[in-house]
């Protein structure tokens, strides 16, 4: 089914494709790049308000303990200390997705990052020293460091109200898995283990809380979701949301880490209230590793079947999540995992059961891909397993089961445009699949360096995700007398390049140079509502909203021009700053002149428009079915690797990627998204793991938490499949999360291809790979 589109949109699209000065699809440097490159960008750390104090938090440093006593007296008497607060000094309101968190902790702590006390002082050095002088007496409780320990008989209860340590269970089904098993000629079953990944935003967490004398609160906050943030935070700090203003300084990366309200944020507000002075709090890198949430580790038991000809029959998924000591929105990542299991390929019978498990580990939250990297690693690894069993080429089995445009999946997702088959064909062709991929290595003497190739595909929401009551975004637009345009968008910029895309869209519609467009996107007092930057939704949703606001301005401008120039509006167009003749492109009048004619002439009118765009998607029903997104993006990654079988080192030589992005809007921006996603995906696959021992982080530094560096990046060949999604701005779909999702499975499949050994645990560190190779050799005898 293709969604219906109004004729104007189609006409506009065709017209724009043929126009020479079109900005769409061009390589446009990000608007914030010059300031960032020259060091002019003023980040949170650069903001210093008059009389500002510095806040610091004392974290528990105990994974599970009763708080017996907190003695703050020595800190309070220090010169320069303006406030010391504990849970006893503030009204405690529970918050978080599981209502199991408070800003400061009372009674007990459930993970090492639990906030015990906080200080505001004249300098950050004094605050740091004061924190050291707070004496806390604990009574240690048994530590639950893993899912297994948490589920063991007689395990200690972490939160009183959840006696079995399982705060959430999710179930999903379509078809009948038992029937699917009967229909299968081959069945493969495996257990996959995926690790804890840290976001590693270049900018660490921070906030400034500043009360006006009228009691209004201004927050300089790095949140990704300013409007729901106001709403959630207001309940915790007991200030009505209409009295809170959120200003976002340039944000040094989000990746989902700023989707929730974190305890340090209300704490900073409490300090500002206690001192009647602005307070700034910023995390050190070590605090960032210890006291911010991570991607959730999961254990995924997956069983799936196929018929002799490769047709998929069923999939049975059992998933457990290490939630940590509190619950964030991240507990809902299985909502996205299940959509990959149910809808990336055609499969008639699917069942998923998920248990979200409390442990005394630092807690987990949203992270680029939102449960999809975990699911895709399991699913795409197992598809290769099925192909092996059937003696099929991994490409053929995927092509056989790939979704196509017009299908409605078992979960009720309507795939208007779907370029999966083209992605599979393009990525493999560019990688040289026919020549380089051979049948998996036969077991033999596992020594020396070998090469292999593997693939994996991607399914993700591409037109927002209707999780909240609205998945919309607002835009306001004003044109001044000189042709300058200010666009107020609800969409936040976290480095992904949305402001550039929005400016391109507006410039395109109004026939103005990009320089004429300014974007205001970081102040809730000025910008209209948006649900937030997540779910790869901004280009699609905020882009559509900006497009519609710009079209309203365009219509008004053309109507004014028609009147002033005594022409028919349908014969006019806007191009390069002028009103032009639509057929000849001959300039008729500068746009500013028409605006001034409107403003100062008889009409005395201004060009100001607004739009609220709500995507044509539906919230999932009680069975978690329904068309959750306005469109879906697809992709395929092919990885070529070299494996040193003596040391276990996996070197990725190349990634060939093909992404169904609907339509490219900013070629340079989208290349950055894809390449950055591949790099982050390679880290997840090969090196990144925040390691905990009994609830304590043992590698909270970049020395030992290993990101992929530029020196290790492989050749990346990125192809764009343009399916022209009718609902998208100029045909575009969201693509931000996709490039991270399939890297692990593609590389793991390539390692299997090279060595004959399948590794179902991430990351593929040299030591893990070597051990698995040795185990396989031992098993061969």
């Amino acid at each position, binding site marked *: 089914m293709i969604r219906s589109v109004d004729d104007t949109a189609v006409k506009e699209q065709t017209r724009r494709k043929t126009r020479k000065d079109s900005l769409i699809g061009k390589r446009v440097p990000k608007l914030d790049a010059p300031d960032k490159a020259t060091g002019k960008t003023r980040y949170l750390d650069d903001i210093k308000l008059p009389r500002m104090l510095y806040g610091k938090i004392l974290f528990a440093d105990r994974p599970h303990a009763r708080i017996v006593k907190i003695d703050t007296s020595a800190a309070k008497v220090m010169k320069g200390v303006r406030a010391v607060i504990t849970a006893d000094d503030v009204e405690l309101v529970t918050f978080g997705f599981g209502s199991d968190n408070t800003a400061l902790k009372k009674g007990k702590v459930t993970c090492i990052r639990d906030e015990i006390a906080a200080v505001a002082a004249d300098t950050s050095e004094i605050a740091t020293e004061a924190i050291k002088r707070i004496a806390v007496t604990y009574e240690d409780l048994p530590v639950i460091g893993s899912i297994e320990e948490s589920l063991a008989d007689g395990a200690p209860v972490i939160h009183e109200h959840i006696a079995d340590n399982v705060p959430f269970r999710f179930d999903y089904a379509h078809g009948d898995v038992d029937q699917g098993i009967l229909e299968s000629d081959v069945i493969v079953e495996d257990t996959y283990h995926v690790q804890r990944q840290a976001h590693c935003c270049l900018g660490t967490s921070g906030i400034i809380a500043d009360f006006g004398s009228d009691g209004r609160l201004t927050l300089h906050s790095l949140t990704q979701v300013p409007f729901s943030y106001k709403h959630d935070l207001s309940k915790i700090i007991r200030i009505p949301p209409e009295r809170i203003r959120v200003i976002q300084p340039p944000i040094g990366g989000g990746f989902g880490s700023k989707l929730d309200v974190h305890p340090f944020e209300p704490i900073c507000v409490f300090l500002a209230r206690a001192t009647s002075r602005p307070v700034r709090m910023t995390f050190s890198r070590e605090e960032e590793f210890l006291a911010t949430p991570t991607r959730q580790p999961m254990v995924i038991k997956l069983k799936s079947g196929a018929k002799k000809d490769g047709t998929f029959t069923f999939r049975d998924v059992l998933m457990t999540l290490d939630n940590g000591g509190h619950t964030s929105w991240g507990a809902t990542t299985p909502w996205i995992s299940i959509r990959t299991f149910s809808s990336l390929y055609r499969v008639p019978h699917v069942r998923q059961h998920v248990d979200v498990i409390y442990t005394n580990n630092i807690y987990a939250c949203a992270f680029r891909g939102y449960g999809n990297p975990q699911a895709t690693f399991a699913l795409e690894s197992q598809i290769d397993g099925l192909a092996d069993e059937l003696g099929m080429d991994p490409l053929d089995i995927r092509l056989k089961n790939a979704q196509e445009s017009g299908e409605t999946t078992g979960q009720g997702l309507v795939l208007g445009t779907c370029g999966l088959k083209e992605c599979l064909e393009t990525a493999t062709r560019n990688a040289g699949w026919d020549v380089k991929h051979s049948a998996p290595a036969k077991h033999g003497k596992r020594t020396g360096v070998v090469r292999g190739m593997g693939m994996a595909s991607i399914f993700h929401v591409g037109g927002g995700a209707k999780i909240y009551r609205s998945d919309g975004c607002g835009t306001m637009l004003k044109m001044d007398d000189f042709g300058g345009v200010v666009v107020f968008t609800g969409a936040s910029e976290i480095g992904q390049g949305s402001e550039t895309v929005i400016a391109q869209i507006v410039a395109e519609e109004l026939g103005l140079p990009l320089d004429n467009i300014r974007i205001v996107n970081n102040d809730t007092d000025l910008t209209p509502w948006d649900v937030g930057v997540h779910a790869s939704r901004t280009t699609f949703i905020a882009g559509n909203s900006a497009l519609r606001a710009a079209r309203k301005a365009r219509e008004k401008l053309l109507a004014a021009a028609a009147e002033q120039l005594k022409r028919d509006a349908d014969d006019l167009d806007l191009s390069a700053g002028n009103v032009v003749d639509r057929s000849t492109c001959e300039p008729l009048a500068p746009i500013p002149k028409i605006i001034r004619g409107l403003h100062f002439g008889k009409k005395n009118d201004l060009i100001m428009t607004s739009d609220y765009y709500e995507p044509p998607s539906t919230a999932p029903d009680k069975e978690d079915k329904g068309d959750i997104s306005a469109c879906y993006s697809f992709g395929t990654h092919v990885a070529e690797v070299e494996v040193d079988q003596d040391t276990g080192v996996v070197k990725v030589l190349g990634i060939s990627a093909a992404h169904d992005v609907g339509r490219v809007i900013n070629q340079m921006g989208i290349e950055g998204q894809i390449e950055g996603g591949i790099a982050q995906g390679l880290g997840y696959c090969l090196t990144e793991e925040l390691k905990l021992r009994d609830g304590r982080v043992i590698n909270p530094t970049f020395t030992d938490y290993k990101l992929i560096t530029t*020196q290790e990046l492989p050749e990346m060949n990125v192809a764009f499949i343009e399916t022209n999604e009718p609902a998208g701005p100029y045909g575009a779909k969201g693509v931000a999360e996709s490039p991270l999702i399939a890297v692990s499975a593609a590389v793991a499949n390539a390692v299997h291809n090279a060595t004959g050994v399948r590794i179902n645990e991430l990351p593929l560190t040299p030591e893990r790979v070597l*051990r698995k190779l040795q185990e396989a050799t031992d098993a061969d005898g």
Partner: protein
Amino acid sequence: MSATKSYLAPTTLSELTRLAGEPGVTVLAGGTDLQPRWSKGTADRPEIVVDIKGINELKGATFANGEIRIGACTRINGIDVNVIVREHAPLLAEAAGRVACPQIRNRATLGGNLCNASPAADTAVPLIALDAVLDIATSAPNGTIIRQVPVTEFFTGPGATVLSPGDVLVAVRFKALPKETFSAWNKFGTRPSMEIAVASVGVVLRMADGKVTAARVGYGSVAPVPLRGVDAEAAIVNQTLSDDVIARCTEAARNEISPITDMRASERYRRDVVAVMLRRMLENARHARNN
């Protein structure tokens, strides 16, 4: 909150040795190990900092009478491309080029890398294989006394050396490798830069008539101190590098090291990669010999 009260920057060795013995003094070279500890609060700031970067006699590499001398305050960035070092001790050039990253190498010094006494110190292992001797200066009533300590005796534990208060490492000296000598150094990690070695190995082999006539083997990150591989050496001296001999040598290496399990690698894996690196070096030596 400890604070440094004075910062002194002597320009001669005799001034330095006189100052170094004063109470509360810490000698500062590149500062790439000390500064982060001071900033993070994992070490107290010393009362008096004596910065040695202004002392010219502690800097640079010289070659005389078949011996190479590198001043303790010579920057690591430069040792990797120094023509003397590359020609006569290529394994040290190799190791110097893999310390941390260019920015840190630009600041860090050879003496600092040794005095910090990390079991993972990249430059210590090639110096063991080169049989290097360290010149250590101490103030005496009638001037400065210099004593020699073999690099194999310099380290006494993680972060600990034979240096007493007042001692200053002045220079590293070793004999130039004869032309036909085979030498190699490598460290194992997961990335090419910014990597603390999971394990490292250095070898120097002299060969005649297809046999190894003399051998020096060193290991890093597999014992409390950078270690000389006495048993591995014994397994190959006076032997032809056959597969069997190489296997005996790597087995000896596995057994004479005493690695620990930590967040970077397990004990078992460290033994595995030491054996692999050593085997590959010996195979290269045999190959070089055959060509």
